[in-house]
């Protein structure tokens, strides 16, 4: 039991500490999950790279104040987003494989879907 001298401050302090606790706990859990698993590290690095490329393109549009080859922008941006989505779904299956779908099959589907995505993007950019 915590003494209730200044309940509000204590609440604020406790919620703040709870938040930081949660952050640190999830960070620890993440580190624990990833450590030693080179595959997950690889997937996460690729995800970070995709986010960076997507942000760069968006900033470029803002800086140029012109979305002129809009199809090219959409193709470039959706390549990042689509690849990111596919990667995350692969990661989910790597961590905890779905019922009746082996990790090998999941990876095969990932490769196939990625190839379709690249094909579409390259055609859309003209």
């Amino acid at each position, binding site marked *: 039991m915590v003494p209730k001298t200044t309940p509000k401050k204590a609440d604020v302090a406790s919620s703040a500490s709870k938040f930081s606790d949660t952050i640190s706990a999830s960070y620890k859990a993440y580190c624990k999950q990833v450590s030693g698993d080179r595959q997950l590290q690889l997937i996460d690095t690729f995800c970070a790279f995709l986010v960076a490329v997507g942000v760069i393109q968006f900033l470029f549009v803002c800086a140029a104040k012109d979305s*002129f080859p809009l199809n090219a922008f959409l193709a470039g941006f959706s390549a990042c987003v689509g690849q990111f989505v596919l990667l995350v779904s692969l990661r989910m299956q790597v961590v905890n494989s779905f019922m009746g779908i082996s990790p090998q099959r999941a990876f095969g589907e990932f490769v196939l879907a990625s190839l379709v995505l690249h094909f579409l993007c390259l055609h859309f950019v003209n």
Partner: protein
Amino acid sequence: MRVVGVFRNVVRTLFMAIAVMPILTLVEAKPAFGSRTLVIYDQRLTELDSYSTFFNSLKERSHELTYRALGNDSTPISLFRGEDRLYDNLIVYPVRSRHFNKQLSVENLLDFFSSGGQVLTVTSPEGLSDNIRSFLNQLGIYPSPRNYYVNDYYHGDENNTLYLTKGKSLNDYVVSPGDYNLVYKGAAALLDNRQLIIPVLQAPKTSFTLDSKQSNEEWTIGSEGYLAAAFQSLHNTRLAWVGSEVFLSDEFSASNGRFAEELTKWTFGEKAVLKSVGFTHHHASGASYLESPYKVKDSIVYEIGFSEWNGSSWGPFTSDDVQFELRMIDPYYRITLLPSETSSDAQYYTTGNFSLPDHHGIFTFLVDYKRAGLSFITEKDVRAIRHLANDEYPRSWDITNSWVYLTSIYSVITVWVLFVVLYLSLRKPKTVETGKKNN
């Protein structure tokens, strides 16, 4: 004897030369469209002899005059044979005869006018027949009724004769600018507010038009009245109205002669007559529309040539206000044309290179030159402007902006290939699986 004979021959040739030369030079002056002129007059009102100067001036300008006197007979006046006009120009003097309304109907007059016949109507307070009045009313000219005289205490005398010392023409193309000393006795007209009507001579500010029998009714007051007016239809047929018979007479020809001559010259198409000698438009490279149809943003040149009738032949017409329009309902372009080449009979104008709008559709290439007093010119050409075909757009690598997006796509693909290779190479050891399970 011989010497005398030679001398006589010399005198005769000299005389012939002097007599024939003016005829030769004058024969050149002629109307642009036709010179068969019919003069209709009322025997009881008009003595043709007192208009000899006026008619001589017309004859000198190659008019073939036919006179038709109206008396007590009521045989119809035919202006057409079948559908062909018998005359090119019509001069109607004031007519009092009641038969005239049946002899020449308003429909006949309008047919004549709209089929290209030029009309000069002279009315007077003594002679304003109903057919002429309703014909003029249809065009928007309302001459004062019978017995209404225009008068002015400052510029006139007690006989309703006006002395305009500084008469000014209201339209420089109809009557060239300058101060005219004019003598006028007759009617004034109210004019409609129509663009086809060209006011020529305005009544003085101090004038008024009054019934000479009941002096309490006015037709015009001050400068709302007009003493001479002109009208040009969209087919370029011309009409002029003068409300005074004596305006054209020998008695006042010394003062009025030049004004009357210019007015009749304009009316009968001897001046201020324009025509287009044709237009062309093509790619800036010189290829025609047929060789390669226009597409959006193509560079195009439009050219047109204008001629003006100078009284005897067609010559170049120079102006700086000719405009070209590229229209699809609204004008997408309105370009003032620049003079380019001049030939002996035409002045050519060009737009220079201009690029078509970024909009496909059916466009009209239009020159619509309408100036009060000059012939109207309308040249239209309807052409399709197509959009780009799917292989005519620039490729992505031609646009520098898209290099960023291209780079990112290819980097995603490259990194993905690397990822697949690394992933497969990492997959082999089973330790990862066990390690994960241990977690």
